[in-house]
């Protein structure tokens, strides 16, 4: 993993993401700052492009609202010709360069959007209930289970919602909300406020 330049600041400052502990918390919130993000636009029918990306370890999900890939980078389906490649922090630059080269000559757009959005993690037994307060998606596990992603709303704010395994409780779901940077504070405050009835842990 590349070093993160200390001058880079997370969208949510430390005085907002103050650690809070609660033994019976229904909700665990955290900020996941600086995830690398590359927006990819590409004709979905271009199989050779998919192969070229696969050679770089980038999987390209073609099924709507799914995520492919894993530890290195994962790719979120955003639309029929649009994906979001998410890398560990600092991983975006190298991948962007490689991918640009691998896809050279094609009509594509690879855009570094690492700083365009930040990511908020929502976990805990009441995570789906909390999201349901502002998200119109059906979050039932049979509908929105592991490996699912959707672009939707949280309150009045756009988000990309990803379902991931809960790091603490094996077998449970957790969620990642990718929201645009300028909205992060609003969404965070909204989540904290909405978590009141469930009890809240904030992971620093």
């Amino acid at each position, binding site marked *: 993993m590349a070093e993160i330049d200390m001058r880079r600041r997370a969208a949510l400052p430390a005085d907002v993401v103050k650690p809070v502990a609660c033994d019976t918390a229904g909700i665990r919130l955290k900020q996941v700052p600086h995830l690398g993000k590359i927006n990819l636009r590409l004709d979905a029918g271009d199989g050779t492009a998919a192969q070229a990306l696969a050679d770089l370890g980038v999987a390209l999900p073609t099924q709507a609202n799914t995520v492919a890939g894993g530890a290195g980078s994962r790719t979120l389906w955003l*639309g029929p010709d*649009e994906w979001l490649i998410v890398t560990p922090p600092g991983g975006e630059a190298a991948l962007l360069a490689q991918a640009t080269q691998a896809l050279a000559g094609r009509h594509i757009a690879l855009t570094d959007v690492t700083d365009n959005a930040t990511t908020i993690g929502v976990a805990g037994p009441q995570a789906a209930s909390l999201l349901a307060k502002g998200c119109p998606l059906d979050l039932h596990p049979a509908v929105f289970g592991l490996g699912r992603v959707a672009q939707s709303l949280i309150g009045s704010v*756009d988000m990309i919602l990803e379902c991931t395994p809960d790091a603490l409780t094996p077998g449970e779901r957790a969620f990642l909300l990718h929201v645009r940077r300028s909205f992060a504070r609003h969404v965070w405050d909204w989540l904290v406020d909405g978590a009141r009835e469930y009890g809240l842990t904030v992971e620093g």
Partner: protein
Amino acid sequence: MMQIPCPWCGPREQQEFRCGGEAHIVRPADPAALDDAGWADYVFMRRNPRGIHRDMWNHVHGCRRWFYLARDTVTDQILAVYKVGEPPPEVDADAPGTAEPGR
């Protein structure tokens, strides 16, 4: 409030979409050749039917794709959904439409 079947993402709540008005209004190939009235017909005049309307919708808070609906403006039942470039399907106003939301 409608539930709109995005042809890419599946059925989603209406809040995620924005309506773009009447579909299939073709931009004149040579606007300069039109008189003022002909141009106004393109810019301003609308069918605005009571009955089956084909309108454009954008999944603004989702996949950002534009697509088309055939919708009965009397009942707001959605009779067909299709993508840009697909031929507009024939629809029947008496079809059951979207009485039952999908998942």
